[in-house]
């Protein structure tokens, strides 16, 4: 029997250990999480994901590269015919790790850059000198011919530096992923973008997508930026927003084996642990991921309840909605909704 849902993309937190203390970190990374998976458990997990027909695995953290066996796990993923990418803050990059990234055969290495100046980036990341280290790492990766993406998480502390960041990475990165910080983990609520600032970021992404060809710099809005605008061009990778994919085509794995529909979701969304049940059992459980799989129009709240896109949109990004409103299916950071509000006020 064909599976109704397949975890095409998996975000796997290899470790919660981190060498930075970023103000916006959603998982409050720093110290190692209790009871993280052992190497044999991680390798077995690779086998289980292959059986579930996973195509892409993104190794993240904490800082994924601080886990000593990250390359062993990465190689196992590749050997099992799945694609592997790595998300790093760039601080641990050195010649040895770059050689290992090449040896593993990652299809992308994503580096976080949150400021266009050392002051801003270092302040956000909590490590003096990390800006220079990050840019050096980016150049080293590019010179080695590794496909590099830069990820910028935007909030009130760095929104004004988007043009500066762009100028820094042009010619160095292949792609630029822009996402907004949401109040989970240790991110202070007062730093979240206003709705007008959020809309300006979406406008910036749409403009940059038009200004630069994909070969020059592929700009994309991630996760929750962009659905159903009536005024500006698409800001996402996909041409259509088909609702939150957590538990539909996306799976999140914490370093202790806890399973969530999306790694960004709060711990209240944990569905089980791979030490108690096989991943397939959790994924194929008919009662799992109800916020995503069983969402109906009657679940939509507030402005989403009467929206004409509600049935397919399902109220936007579950993480943003839950962190800002306390409930899913009610994402207030929606371009369609904001445009309606702005036009009403004019």
């Amino acid at each position, binding site marked *: 029997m064909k599976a109704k849902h*397949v975890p095409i993309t998996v975000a796997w937190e290899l470790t919660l250990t981190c060498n930075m203390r970023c103000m916006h970190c959603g998982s409050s990374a720093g110290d190692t999480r209790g009871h993280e998976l052992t190497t044999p458990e991680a390798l077995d997990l690779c086998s289980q994901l292959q059986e579930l027909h996973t195509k892409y695995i993104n190794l993240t953290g904490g800082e994924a590269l601080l886990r000593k066996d990250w390359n062993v796990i990465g190689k196992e993923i590749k050997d099992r015919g799945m694609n592997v*990418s790595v998300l790093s803050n760039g601080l641990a990059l050195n010649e040895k790790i770059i050689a290992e990234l090449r040896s593993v055969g990652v299809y992308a290495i994503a580096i976080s850059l949150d400021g266009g100046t050392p002051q801003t980036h270092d302040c956000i990341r909590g490590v003096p000198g990390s800006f220079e280290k990050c840019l050096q790492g980016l150049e080293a990766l590019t010179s080695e011919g590794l496909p590099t993406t830069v990820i910028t998480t935007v909030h009130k502390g760095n929104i004004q530096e988007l043009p500066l960041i762009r100028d820094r990475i042009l010619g160095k990165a292949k792609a630029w992923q822009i996402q907004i910080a949401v109040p989970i983990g240790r991110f202070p609520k007062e730093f979240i973008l206003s709705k007008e600032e959020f809309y300006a970021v979406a406008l910036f992404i749409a403009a940059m997508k038009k*200004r630069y060809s994909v070969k020059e710099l592929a700009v994309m809005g991630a996760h929750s930026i962009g659905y159903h605008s009536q005024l500006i*061009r*698409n800001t996402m*990778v*996909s*041409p*259509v927003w088909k609702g939150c994919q957590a538990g539909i085509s996306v799976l999140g794995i914490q370093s202790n084996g806890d399973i969530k529909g999306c790694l960004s979701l709060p711990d209240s969304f944990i569905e089980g642990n791979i030490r108690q049940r096989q991943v397939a059992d959790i994924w194929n459980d008919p009662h799992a991921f109800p916020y995503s799989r069983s969402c109906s129009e009657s679940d939509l709240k507030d402005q989403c309840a009467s929206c004409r896109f509600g049935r397919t949109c399902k109220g936007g990004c579950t993480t943003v909605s839950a962190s800002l409103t306390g409930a899913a299916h009610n994402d207030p950071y929606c371009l369609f909704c904001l445009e309606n509000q702005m036009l009403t006020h004019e």
Partner: protein
Amino acid sequence: MLRNMGQTLGLTHTDIDRAKRTARSILGVTIAATLAIIIGKIALSQLDSVGLYYIGVSIKDFNLLSRFF
């Protein structure tokens, strides 16, 4: 209104005009979305989970899809 917002992030009037939806961009998105759905549906029925790959979003899709809109 869009110009005021855009100027706060260093966008020129040309950038902002180009960022707006046009009949051509709407048509492009419609074609791209239709193709993605058709390919996905066909592949889903014939190739099981591979079909979902075409519907799913990944960085590897980006080079293809970005040219349409």
